[in-house]
């Protein structure tokens, strides 16, 4: 498996050259990254020349809260620690403010990415393709529905949940959220509790939408611990020297 993957990586490098922004192998899986402008061309070639007949999945990722934790311990005082989830964390991952009103800054260079999982049934290989959207405020990618018909709903889902627009999609509508839903719920600045709740109003005789009445809360704070067991060998050495 590993040899076949190595061979595939080399073939990909030969075929795409500079177009291939980067490639890496991690836990036995091959991931390549391409630029937004090259997406369609690369995907077409992957299907026709590299025999990836199946698009298994399309997945949006929002890197806005990458490597941010909720555990704030700097302001420990004589009165002890706060509950650790302090600070206005309306959106639970360390971003402040109300969804959609304030600009979101990211730790990584770009915020949105789409990740495609490809499967070659004939060669028994998998490949992951990641493409970052150039524009954080208006993420647009080329649709691959004309390459794999199965991409249709996957792209609709990614659009619905992350607001990534797929150019050339025949029917880009919301799919999982409610009719008339506002916002893209899987973005990191969208609160877990949501913005509106519904109930049946007897006076009006219909279902009404109201602002949420519950409070957001975090039961287990998100922490990032440096774990030497997983550190790169070089880094470990540095740490011991220091």
């Amino acid at each position, binding site marked *: 498996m590993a040899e076949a993957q190595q061979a595939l990586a080399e073939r990909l490098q030969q075929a795409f050259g500079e177009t291939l922004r980067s490639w890496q192998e*991690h*836990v*036995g*899986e091959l*991931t390549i990254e391409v630029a937004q402008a090259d997406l369609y061309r690369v995907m077409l070639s992957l299907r026709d020349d590299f025999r990836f*007949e*199946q*698009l*298994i*999945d399309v*997945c949006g*990722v*929002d890197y806005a*809260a*990458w*490597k941010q*934790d909720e555990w704030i311990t700097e302001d420990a005082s004589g009165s002890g620690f706060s509950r650790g989830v302090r600070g206005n964390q309306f959106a*639970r991952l360390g971003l402040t403010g109300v969804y959609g009103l304030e600009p979101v800054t990211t730790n990584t260079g770009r915020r949105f990415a789409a*990740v495609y*999982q490809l499967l070659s*049934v004939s060669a*028994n290989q*998998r490949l*992951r393709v990641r493409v970052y959207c150039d524009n954080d405020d208006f993420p647009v990618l080329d649709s691959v529905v004309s390459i*794999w*018909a*199965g*991409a*249709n*709903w*996957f792209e609709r*889902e990614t659009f619905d949940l992350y607001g990534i627009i797929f150019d050339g999609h025949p029917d880009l509508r*919301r*799919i*999982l*959220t*409610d009719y008339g839903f506002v916002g893209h*719920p*899987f973005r990191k600045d969208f609160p*877990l509790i949501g913005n509106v709740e519904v109930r049946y109003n007897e006076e009006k005789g219909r279902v009404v939408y109201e602002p949420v009445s519950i409070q957001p809360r*975090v*039961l*287990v704070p*998100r*922490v*990032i*611990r*440096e*774990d030497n067991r*997983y550190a790169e060998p070089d880094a470990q050495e540095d740490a011991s020297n220091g």
Partner: protein
Amino acid sequence: MADIQSYTMNFGPQHPAAHGVLRMVLEMEGEVIRRADPHIGLLHRATEKLAESKPYNQSIGYMDRLDYVSMMCNEHGYVMAIEKLLGVEPPLRAQYIRVMFDEITRILNHLMWLGTHGLDVGAMTMFLYCFRERELLMDVYEAVSGTRMHATYYRPGGVYRDLPERMPQFEASRFRSEKDLEWLNKDRQGSMLDFIDSFCERFPTSIDEYETLLTDNRIWKQRLVGIGQVSAERALQLGFTGPMLRGSGVEWDLRKMQPYAVYDRLDFDVPIGTNGDCYDRYVVRVEEMRQSTRIIKQCVDWLRQNPGPVIIDDHKIAPPTREEMKDDMESLIHHFKLFTEGYCVPEGEAYASVEAPKGEFGVYMVSDGANKPYRVKVRAPGFAHLAAMDEMARGHMLADVVALIGTMDIVFGEIDR
């Protein structure tokens, strides 16, 4: 009246044949469907977003609730993704237990599918027959995990506990005569493995029973043969996996092609169809139940002879036993840390997939080194299948839509997520 050419019909979301909350807007021309537009998401619970807000282990239970008729297979995909990132390998016995339960789950799922598919198409008896056997397997679930459905039994690094020595028995009550009780408990005298073994002995006969009712049944064939035909090429294009793909004649089964757990040590066959219609998919699934029985039998034999640990003893990931905690400070700390904070998973991403009863169930997991996943994406097989509804239903009659929903084996827990 004559000038009305086409009209739109609303199917569901409350419809007995919709297998949950499926709403379909059908554009009809007489009784022929011109366009089908499924509206999904009525059961959307944002499982993936919830998983982002919880330590890794707390989301295992959510996986049961995705495809709620093949619970343990979903768990398997999820824990495999974590294990990949952590770089741990569960003990061999745990892997055999997982495979055994994956296959029990496959039978559970296919029985549910067969029963409801039959019911949709008009075969009432099937439902009762299937649920009779299904109940026995539910008891196995309950014996091993404490719950009939949402087991939360698989853990990163193994399974929660070893198989019970004793199969729970029915208790006496005023609603059961002594004779009934004796009959009910006949197979439950020994251990759980004995119970499963005796089930495997009897189950092929039960499948024969289903087949006598359906396989050559004229009405069954009239409703299924030639309905929803998908060519192998289209099936690949549309992202079909599992029996939907194999029904179209593509020989692809993750258990054979990319074996995980201990599938490469087991002997079984992968049935494939030729025509790619509803009937072929029916035949494929029925044969899969027979093959699953074979696999379970091999697992039972192996498990009987090879006792051993069922979860790794790395207490950074798997909790120590109660006993150890009583007199070991270290264990107590490990336990406390695991249940208050969980474990941090090294930065990286992984995609783990299992051959779930419905197709390829995959979990794509991104970690930024925290104790909670950064992003979990569940790749549900049913999602891709239902997306093909429009293409499959075009030109068929309204009644065939019900057969199509049945053949896709739709469960909304996984489609809406």
